[in-house]
């Protein structure tokens, strides 16, 4: 079945440092979505990428979708304590299933 791998599993950064999490799918994706889950909370939709090589920005967050539509990354510039949480990528396969498959997430801790 489809697998979505995400690294690193944990990341501790000093406030103001940058942070990147990487996502790789075993199959080509039709789109990839990113979610943030605060401790004790539920996943909250951040963004969806659809086109090969697409780059989208939301303030300090930059999202990229690979040319082959199998990998993606999320980069946060100058982290703040409000960025704390687990960031999940989730993909839908290009063919067949519409099932949204989540990666294991990267848990971000920001040290003030």
């Amino acid at each position: 079945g489809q697998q979505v791998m995400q690294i690193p599993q944990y990341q501790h950064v000093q406030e103001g440092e940058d942070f990147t999490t990487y996502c790789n799918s075993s199959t080509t994706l039709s789109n990839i979505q990113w979610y943030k889950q605060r401790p004790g909370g539920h996943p909250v939709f951040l963004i969806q990428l659809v086109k090969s090589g697409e780059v989208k920005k939301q303030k300090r967050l930059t999202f990229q979708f690979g040319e082959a539509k199998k990998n993606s990354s999320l980069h946060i510039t100058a982290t703040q304590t409000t960025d704390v949480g687990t960031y999940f990528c989730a993909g839908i396969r290009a063919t067949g299933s519409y099932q949204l498959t989540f990666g294991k997430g990267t848990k971000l801790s920001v040290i003030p």
Partner: protein
Amino acid sequence: EPEVTQTPSHQVTQMGQEVILRCVPISNHLYFYWYRQILGQKVEFLVSFYNNEISEKSEIFDDQFSVERPDGSNFTLKIRSTKLEDSAMYFCASTDGWAGPNYGYTFGSGTRLTVV
């Protein structure tokens, strides 16, 4: 902003008992989902539901699980005979009606199910 509402927030049940988890999706959404998350682990797909029937289900969604949309607003997940390994946070989600599954999901706050 519209929300997906889930009840109860916590449920403790004895092994072998039946539980029903309830969800009220966003009113104009047509695609509904159940996911679960075992503590500290990834979010796992259980089932998707569209047009009053199951669209897809995962290997986790065996004969012990069922879903229903009993009226125009509620969407329920039933576990007939709970097992210890069913203990998890269960999230309901829905997506925008016209965009369907290829669109950002709105998740509810979850029901934490503990089977003892």
